[in-house]
């Protein structure tokens, strides 16, 4: 039994393939139960939130009101910041320039069955147009990429997995460096020279160099910088909440998307007929 499995491992290394047939059978057999389980979990949570959790609604309402006041103050401060306006304009411009870029909404039905890797399964697969290596995002930022597309299910490698990586750059300085997972909640920005200036709180966005994700999608925020030689250790907190993913968007294209930089991006952003890219409902 052991020898057979060692041979199986060796065969996968030699042929650089990962036993797709067995995986397809297993995922095909297990994913219906995962779908049912996910559906049940959502119903239970819905019932809980809709009835039982309302016991604390008055207190929560008060907290939310306080939070709203704080947020209103914050919005007023942000209104005056031209840089923020520019960023929003760029994002909006990205959406405008990629109205034809199809995106597919998908529900997360399961996570990896092992303890070491960070992958999830979504309820969309080859029959919905999902293919291997397609990018996966949420409105908050990059999530990961498709590593296996089965018939009605796909496996997504999260950005936090140690084998994961994305072409990225610092939003302000435009300094490019790949960002990869470490198996921990924080990401690592590799190859930032000790001479380069990086500040905590700086935003990290996609560079488009990996030809999977379009440029300027949020990747995360720099939270920790440790000096090193020749490279600094720059830790990045993912923009998307990768620990609590329930719905994601799959970029249904394998062609690289690039943002067209135009000098009047801000003007375009204010255009009244701006519409988001089409999104298929789950």
């Amino acid at each position, binding site marked *: 039994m052991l020898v057979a*499995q060692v041979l199986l491992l060796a065969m996968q290394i030699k042929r650089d393939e990962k036993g797709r047939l067995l*995986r397809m059978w*297993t995922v095909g057999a297990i994913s219906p139960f995962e779908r049912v389980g996910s559906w049940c979990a959502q119903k239970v949570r819905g019932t809980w939130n809709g009835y039982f959790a309302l016991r604390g609604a008055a207190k929560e309402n008060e907290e939310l009101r306080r939070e709203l006041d704080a947020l209103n103050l914050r919005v007023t401060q942000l209104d005056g910041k031209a840089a923020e306006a520019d960023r929003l304009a760029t994002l909006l411009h990205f959406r405008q320039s990629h109205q034809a870029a199809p995106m597919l909404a998908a529900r997360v039905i*399961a996570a*990896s069955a*092992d303890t070491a*890797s960070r992958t999830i399964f979504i309820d969309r697969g080859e029959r919905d147009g999902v293919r291997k290596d397609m990018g996966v995002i949420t409105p908050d930022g990059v999530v990961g990429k498709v590593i296996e597309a089965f018939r009605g299910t796909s496996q997504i490698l999260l950005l936090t997995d140690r084998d994961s990586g994305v072409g990225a750059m610092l939003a302000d300085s435009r300094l490019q460096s790949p960002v990869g997972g470490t198996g921990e909640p924080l990401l690592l920005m590799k190859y930032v020279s000790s001479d380069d200036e990086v500040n905590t709180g700086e935003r990290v966005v996609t560079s488009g160099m990996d030809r999977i994700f379009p440029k300027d999608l949020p990747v995360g925020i720099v939270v920790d910088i440790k000096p090193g030689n020749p490279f600094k250790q720059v830790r990045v907190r993912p923009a998307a909440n990768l620990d*609590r993913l329930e719905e994601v968007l799959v970029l249904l294209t394998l062609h690289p998307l690039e943002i067209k930089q135009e000098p009047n991006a801000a003007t375009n952003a204010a255009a009244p007929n701006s519409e988001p890219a089409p999104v298929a409902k789950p």
Partner: protein
Amino acid sequence: MNGTFDLRAGETHIEVYKFRSGAIVLVTLLVLVLQALLRVYFPRAEMLDLPLLVTIYFGLSRRNPSSGLLLGTVIGLLQDSLSKAPLGLYGIAKTLIGYLASSIGGRLDTEHPASRFALTAVFFAMHQGIIWLIRRLLLGQPEMWFNLRLGAAALINGGVAVFLFLLLDRLRARS
């Protein structure tokens, strides 16, 4: 179906348990689905290895090295199929743990919660050690084996095993 029966070899007294028909298959399926679902809603559940706990439990209870080995292989390979690990990584680790658990099950008291806790924690650490060895020797993926996180995970799995094993005890066939 026979429930509990005794094997008497000299002074030793070994109880071998049998389970209701289909119980092992259903429990295996359930823990695989549960393992995948729990992590979506409770990220901390990534520390748990429910398929390993089930492998250990049935190994300790049935006390038959052949069936322990076989069950470990099947559960491990299914777990590999539902992750991005190469097929055989968890398969080999759980084959060995299934074999060891069923071999040790006949020599130790495995009914007391304290011994179940300790055995599970030790088996968990061994399981991670085997995976570390395979990654290092066969796959060329060196990584740290023991850290505080692993120690905590071993204790958590041991704690969960105490309660899970009590639940699984109910699936034993009555004599």
